[in-house]
Structure formats: structure tokens, C-alpha cells
């Protein structure tokens, strides 16, 4: 019976228990109100509607039970594992912590899949049986405890109900707290990102075979897949090179489109062109990557070969690789265009019309007004837009994974297959990942650097945008 309980999909049981308890509590709360004697002034008028009393009892019942389940979810599994580890024979426990946990992983896997066929390994079968049994015990205890606290809460809540009870206030406080929790998830996410990156990065620098911090940041040799060369300078060079190429495309096209759309285009043109431009932003990056690799990269290559064949150009002047930084950069630039254009469009539109009118009245042409009045006024915002675009280009993954290369080089030649930070993260973490080799963890160190760099760009840009908004508001 206990084993069977260890096999069931426990999450659903928890959910069912909570749902049933909630239902009962709701109607019990309403009934308690109906049964409450009419007392007090104002002819016994209710403070809160009956439903609020119901919800109050639901809150009192469910929250303690949910906390118990949360506790189980956090520590239950570890409890079972520790208990089982204590009972296992010495020869398995002596194998070391990692081996032990892998063994229990297999046990757990086997027990939850509820294989009826025995493996033949008597110890393993017995242990997995015991695992299911222990899990069942812990779960049974959890449900029991949850029912007890739910009952207590239920009793407490129902006792408080009478016609003057301010149920609504309590319920609304609960709702308010729930809303706060939802908003705080954003903070928890950031904390989660930072903690996971920081911890793994620290592990990376202390693990055997890991590099020193300066060796990592300023080393020029990257060979994580096979050797132990973790110098990320070439990756950073490739990232910046591709981002720069992308910005060479995106900045002029994006800016001029924004200027044209906000200053010259008729409303009709604007209503058609703007959504079309924004379509570019809605295309998944993997599609851009495919386009870059199958259409643009061969073009770049044959272009480079043509340049190589020109007279006066030395042999193999350009690398002309089948995948190249230039192909990735060009396509990434196209991807970022709507980003630059819509952000700068907002900024340009925010410049007060009076400034333009003044310049035009002085006899300036439209382009002179834009160049000498509007753009200087919009400059901080435009710079912020460009910074956000750079941060986007630095963090872009799929295009470089598909269209740039894997070779860690430092060369000014854009037709060679430079690699990037994001490319290496994907290369290191795709496939079977063990979280205990320097190779895998180096991806987190790379991620940490990437996160830090983009964070700086983003914060500066956001700050500028905010300041700028206040200036004209």
C-alpha cells in the first residue's frame, strides 16, 4: 500500500486535496454566516458580502496546507534520499557522494516508472522497493499533516465569522499579497539568474583544470571542447566584431527609416510601412540564422573569392570561409533594424513640435531642421536606442550559431568564421551535460560575462531613456 502511494502522481493528489478543501471551506464559510445570529446595530447589516466570508475561510484553510506541501516539495525528496543512503550497504555508500547520488537517481527513476519487471540485481530491486516505500511514507505523512493544519485553519476561520466580521478586508489583504508575490517573481528571476551564474562561475575558477580569472578574461587561447585553454578574448573579439558589423547595417538603415517615417512619410505610407518593418522583428531568430547560412553566407564566400582573384590582391587575402562573421553580421543587422527604427521613432516623435516650427520659420529646410535641431535634441534617446540594439546584437544566439563559426580566432578579416560567446555557450551545453566538468561550467562563466556586459548597456540605455522622457514631459 505504501509502495503504491510512492508511485502515484503526487502533484495531482495535492492539487485535488487543496481543491476539495477549498470547496468545502467556501460553502462552510457561507453557511456559518447564514447561521450567525443577527446582532448589533443597523439592523444587523452585513459588513461584507457572503462570498467574502466564504473566501475568508478558504484562505484560512488552504494557505497552511499549501505551506505544508511547499515544505514537502522543498525537502521531502532529500529526506527520503538521506534516509535511504543511511540504510544502503557500505560498499555503495563508500563509492563517494557523486556515485551514491547517481545510484539513488537510478533507484528513483526505476521506482517512479513503476517497473514490474525486476532487474535481477537483488540489492537494486530491494532498494528501489524501499525507495518507493519511504516515499510513500513521507507522502502519507505530508497529506496527513496538511489535513490537520487545514482542519485547524478551517476551524479558526469559521469561528471568526459573524455578521459584523470584516471578511472583505482580510480577503483583500490576501489578494494584495498575492499580487505582490507575482510582481516579486521578476525579482526572484533576476536573483536566480545572478545566483546561478555567480555560483557556477566561482566553481569554474576553483575547479581542477579551471583557469585563473585573468587567464580567463585576457587569455587568447580558447579550446574548451578538448583541452583546457579558457582564454575568452577571441570569443569577445568575435562577438564585438559581429555586433559591429550588425550595427553598421542597422544603425544607418534604422535611423534613416525612423527619420523618414516620422518626418517625411504621409500617414498612408506610415500605416503600411511601419507594421511591415516591425514584421522583421517578429521573425524568429532561427529563421534569420537559416537565411544567413543558406543564402547570405555562400554569397559572402563567392564575393570574397572574387576579391581574392582580383589582380594586385595577394593570394588568400580573405579567408572566404563557408560560414563567416560577415554573413552573420549582415543578417543580424537586418534583424535589429526595426528595433533601432521603432525606438528612435518614439524618441524623434517626442521632440516638441515647437522646436521644429521655430527652425522652419527661420528659413531652414526640412533636412536642416532635422540635422541641426531635431537630431541634437533626440540624440540621448537615439544613443540609448543604439545601445539597446548593441546589447541585443551581443546576446543574439541562433544567427551566430548557424551562420558564424566555431573557431576562436582574432583576425580583422570579416569573411573568416569567427566565434562568439553565445556560440560557445550553446556548443558547450548542448547534448549531454554533466555539471561537474570545467568544460560545462565554463559556459556559465561565459554567461556571467555576457550578462554583465549586456546589463551595463541596458542600464545605461534605460537610465538615459528615463531621464530623457522626464525632460520633455
Amino acid at each position: 500500500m505504501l509502495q503504491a502511494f510512492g508511485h502515484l502522481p503526487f502533484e495531482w493528489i495535492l492539487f485535488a486535496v487543496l481543491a476539495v478543501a477549498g470547496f468545502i471551506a467556501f460553502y462552510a464559510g457561507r453557511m456559518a454566516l447564514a447561521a450567525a445570529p443577527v446582532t448589533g446595530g443597523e439592523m444587523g447589516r452585513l459588513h461584507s458580502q457572503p462570498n467574502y466570508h466564504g473566501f475568508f475561510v478558504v484562505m484560512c484553510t488552504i494557505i497552511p496546507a499549501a505551506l505544508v506541501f511547499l515544505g514537502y516539495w522543498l525537502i521531502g525528496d532529500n529526506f527520503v534520499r538521506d534516509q535511504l543512503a543511511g540504510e544502503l550497504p557500505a560498499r555503495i555508500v563508500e563509492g563517494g557522494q557523486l556515485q551514491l547520488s547517481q545510484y539513488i537517481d537510478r533507484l528513483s527513476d526505476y521506482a517512479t516508472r513503476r517497473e514490474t519487471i525486476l532487474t535481477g540485481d537483488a540489492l537494486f530491486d530491494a532498494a528501489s522497493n524501499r525507495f518507493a516505500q519511504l516515499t510513500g511514507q513521507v507522502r502519507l505523512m505530508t497529506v496527513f499533516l496538511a489535513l490537520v493544519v487545514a482542519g485547524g485553519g478551517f476551524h479558526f476561520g469559521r469561528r471568526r465569522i459573524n455578521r459584523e466580521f470584516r471578511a472583505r478586508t482580510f480577503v483583500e489583504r490576501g489578494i494584495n499579497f498575492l499580487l505582490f508575490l507575482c510582481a516579486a517573481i521578476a525579482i526572484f528571476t533576476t536573483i536566480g539568474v545572478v545566483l546561478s551564474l555567480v555560483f557556477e562561475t566561482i566553481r569554474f575558477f576553483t575547479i581542477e583544470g579551471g583557469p585563473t580569472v585573468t587567464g580567463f578574461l585576457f587569455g587568447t587561447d580558447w579550446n574548451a571542447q578538448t583541452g583546457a585553454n579558457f582564454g575568452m578574448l577571441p570569443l569577445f573579439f568575435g562577438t564585438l566584431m559581429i555586433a559591429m558589423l550588425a550595427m553598421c547595417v542597422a544603425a544607418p538603415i534604422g535611423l534613416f527609416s525612423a527619420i523618414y517615417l516620422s518626418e517625411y512619410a504621409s500617414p498612408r505610407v506610415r500605416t503600411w510601412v511601419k507594421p511591415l518593418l516591425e514584421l522583421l522583428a517578429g521573425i524568429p531568430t532561427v529563421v534569420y540564422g537559416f537565411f544567413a547560412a543558406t543564402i547570405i553566407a555562400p554569397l559572402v564566400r563567392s564575393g570574397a573569392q572574387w576579391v581574392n582573384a582580383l589582380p594586385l590582391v595577394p593570394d588568400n587575402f580573405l579567408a572566404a570561409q563557408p560560414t563567416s562573421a560577415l554573413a552573420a553580421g549582415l543578417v543580424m543587422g537586418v534583424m535589429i533594424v526595426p528595433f533601432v527604427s521603432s525606438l528612435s521613432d518614439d524618441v524623434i516623435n517626442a521632440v516638441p513640435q515647437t522646436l521644429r516650427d521655430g527652425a522652419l520659420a527661420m528659413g531652414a529646410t526640412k533636412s536642416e531642421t532635422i540635422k541641426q535641431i531635431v537630431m541634437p535634441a533626440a540624440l540621448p534617446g537615439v544613443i540609448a536606442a543604439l545601445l539597446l540594439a548593441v546589447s541585443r546584437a551581443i546576446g543574439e544566439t541562433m544567427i551566430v550559431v548557424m551562420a558564424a563559426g566555431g573557431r576562436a580566432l582574432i583576425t580583422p578579416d570579416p569573411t573568416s568564421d569567427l566565434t562568439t560567446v553565445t556560440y560557445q555557450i550553446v556548443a558547450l551545453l548542448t547534448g549531454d551535460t554533466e555539471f561537474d566538468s570545467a568544460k560545462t561550467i565554463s559556459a556559465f562563466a561565459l554567461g556571467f560575462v555576457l550578462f554583465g556586459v549586456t546589463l551595463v548597456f541596458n542600464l545605461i540605455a534605460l537610465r538615459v531613456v528615463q531621464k530623457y522622457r522626464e525632460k520633455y514631459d
Partner: protein
Amino acid sequence: MTDAQPPKSTSPFGSEAAIARLKDRHAAERRFKLYGQLAIGIALSALFVLAYSIISNAAPAFTKHEIVFHLTLDAETVAPNGVEDTQATASNISGFYSLIQDDLRETFPEAATERQLRRELYALVTRLAVLDIARETAETPALIGTTKRFTAPLSDDLDLYLKGGITARRTLTVGQAGRLSVLESGLYSLSDSGPDGFPEFKAKIETDTAADSSVLIRLQDAWFRLEAHSGAMLTLTHLAGALPQLGEQQSAEISALVLFVAQANRAVSDRQIAWAILLQEKGRIRRKQNFDLLTKADSTYPELAGAAAAIVGSIFTMLITAFFAIPVGILAAVYLEEFAPKNRLTNMIEVNINNLAAVPSIIFGLLGAAVFLNFFGMPRSVPLVGGLVLGLLVLPTVIIASRAALKSVPPSIRTAALGLGASKTQAVFHHTLPLAAPGIMTGAIIAMARALGETAPLLLIGMVAFVNEVPTGPDQESTALPVLIYKWFSGAERAWEPMTSAVIVILLVFLILMNLVAVLVRRRFERRW
């Protein structure tokens, strides 16, 4: 002499120099405007080139060729363990494949003699292609012992060839056949019916084709390869099809097929091409709509692969994402917009959200790998984890869109509700939120569309695993559409390229549908205050 000097003008444009300057300024104005038009032109043409190249690339993958077989399912070969053991029948690939091999050998006896030739012939149909036939037979055991018509997909490279890929080609007329005779070396020689020895054909061959192009010669039902054309004779190797009678050919027409890519550089041999053409003429190879793309799961063979598993995986992932990100995002937006006191903490949350929206997506993949996989020990490659990671990724987007929608509801609504005695919570949930709902829904759908196209985080939590079965729940191993695109893109065979484009088209169709719904919601329900 009169005073011929022009009167001094007071206009700023009185002098030549001033007019020239004005001209320059107007030219600069036109140039500037042109730059803007150019920029928009470049961006839009990039969009059209992208769309055109993907769609034209995908077009071949929407049809595929299959071979028709009439197989006699004799019990010995098909169900060696007995008819009752349906499981054994369903997985009896070698038995069913041997039926196909026999059939092919019977159709082309010229290949039966040599091992190498047989292998080339059998390559027309992939071994695993019989799986469907085996399953069908296992389901209806009554079929065993009867003869039934089956179809099996043609091998991917030949399929591509028949669709016009693999090699450029041209058909030529050679002339009329004279005598066909066999040489000592096993080659054949063919003479012109006239005395000239195909002068036009030879001239064309000399000028147009490279030395290593293949020239296939068709004489009645047989295909030959041209080895040499010395004097009045063509020296030929027999490739495929029934040999005509040796001797006089009564001026039968000869045609030629020139394949410009050398045999060594392509995945299909001259012989296989000849066989495929013969089968096509017999009506045994036909082209049909490729619904497998939507109904089959992934495979290592392009002709057997489909995107069904990825579509279902994507749907599960999106469900999890939606169930997580949309309620949490809306509630968070309600808090920040309606309830949050102005203090340090809420200010921090706000900066945080804006910043999270700009964090590279791959960082969320690292978060998923470190927290969900490593710390919580959740399984790899499952939509549950993928959905949560994508949920965290789009949460800021949902929050920002919801806040904008809430902001656009005029304060008079709130004050009216409060004035009638509603509590703040009631005012928000009964009045503000329903009025903001269309805007919130639009934002949520667009956020979901973004999540649907996201690839990098899913790669890091292992959703690139090879999954050849359609997942049945969000806790099953599966993959997602964008990841499938990446995977097929990395495949070595040429046939993956159109397949990849086809999946891109499917993904884009989903995205367009979602955006359309968003636009419709906005059009239908939006209120201007």
C-alpha cells in the same frame, strides 16, 4: 556710358552665389529624403528576399515521390512467429524489406547479378520505409497471404533529383539508331542509321558539356551511358531497362540526357536515375502531397521525417508558458499599476522588469539549466521545463503590455467605482481589469508568439534530443518547432534543406495566425477613451 550696373538687390537670393547656395541646399534636402527612402527600401526588400527565398526553398518539400508496390504478404516472410504475434510482425522490418527487394529485383533483372548493383537498386527505398506497411499488416492480419498495393517513399536524393535538384540536366536528340552490337569488353556500340555518325549530337557534346558530365543514352526501353564517341560509333555501357535486340534498330529514335554534375559528386548514381525514370514512365513512381510533414515524427531519414512531434511539443510548451506567464504577468501588472506604493522596493521591481526584458534569451537558458535541471533535478528535454523557462523569458513582456493597457483605462472609471462604495480591489477587478482586457490579451498573444519562435534557451535545457514519437504530455521528452528547424538545418543530407524551409513555413504560419488573432482582438474590442 550709362550706368550698366544692376541695382543692388535687398533679397538674400539676389546674387549668383546665393542662388547656387540655395540650389545646393535643396539638393541636400532631396538627397536626405532619398537616404530615408533608400533605407526603407533596403529593409523592406530584405524582408521580401527573406520571405521569397524561404518559400521557394520550401516548395519542393510540400510534395514527395513514392514508389508503388504490389506485394504478396506471404506468411513465412512477413510473420515468421505466427500471425498472432502482431508485435513481431509490426517490427519485422527485414521481412517486409525483403519483399520490396524481391520486387525491385524482378522489375530490374539487370541488377540481380552483382552485389554492388543490387545494393544500388535497393537504395531506391530506405529500409525503415517499410515500417508503415508492417504496422498496417500487423493491425489487420487478414492481409497476410493476400496481394495488396502499398506505397513507400522514394529515397530522399532521388526524390530531390526528380524535383529538379541535385544536378543540372538537359535532354538532347541524338539521331536515329543504326546497328547495336556488343563488344568484347561487355560494352555496346551503336551506329548511326545514316553514314555521318551523329555529327550534331557530337558537336553539342563537345561544346556544351564538361569532361566529367554524364551523358545517358536512351534507346527504346534501355538506358546506356556514353563512354566514348569515336568515328561513327557511340560506345555505351548498359545501365538499366530491357536491352533491345542486338543488330539493326530500324532507325529507332535515340535521345540523350546530359547530367552536368559528375557522378562522383552527387548522391545518386546514373543507374539510379535511369531506374527512377523507368519506374516513373511505368507509373510506379508518383508525386503526391507530403502530408507526412504534418503527421509523422522525426526520423534520421529525410523521406520519413515529419514535424508532428515538434508541433505537439511546441503546443505543450506554449500551454505551460501561457499558464505561467499570463496570469502571473497580469497580476504583477495590476499590482505595479494599481496597488504598489511608491517606494524603493517597487522602484527596484520596475527597473528589474525593464532590465529583464532586455536580457539575452540564452541567459534564461542558462538559468533553466542551472536551476530547473541541476538544482531542482527536473528532467531534461521536457516541455514542462521549456515552458517555465520561456514563461520567465516573456514575463516582462506580458507585464509591460498589461501595464500599458491598464494605464489607458481612464481614472474616471476607478473614481466612479470608488465613489459608489467599491473597495479598491473591487474597483480594479470589476471595472479596470475587464476594460483593459483586450489590450492585455493582445500583449499576451504577442508575447506567446515571441516564445514560440525562441530557440536558444530550449537548446540549453536539452530540447534538441532526437524524439521519434509524438509526445503525449508535457512531462514527455519532446522537441519544439524552432529547435527542429535548427536540428534539420544541421543535417548533412541535401534533402534536409527544403524540409527545414517547410518547417519554417509551418512556424511562420503559426506566428502569423497568432498575430492575426491579436490584431482582430484589438480591432474588435479596443475602446478609445
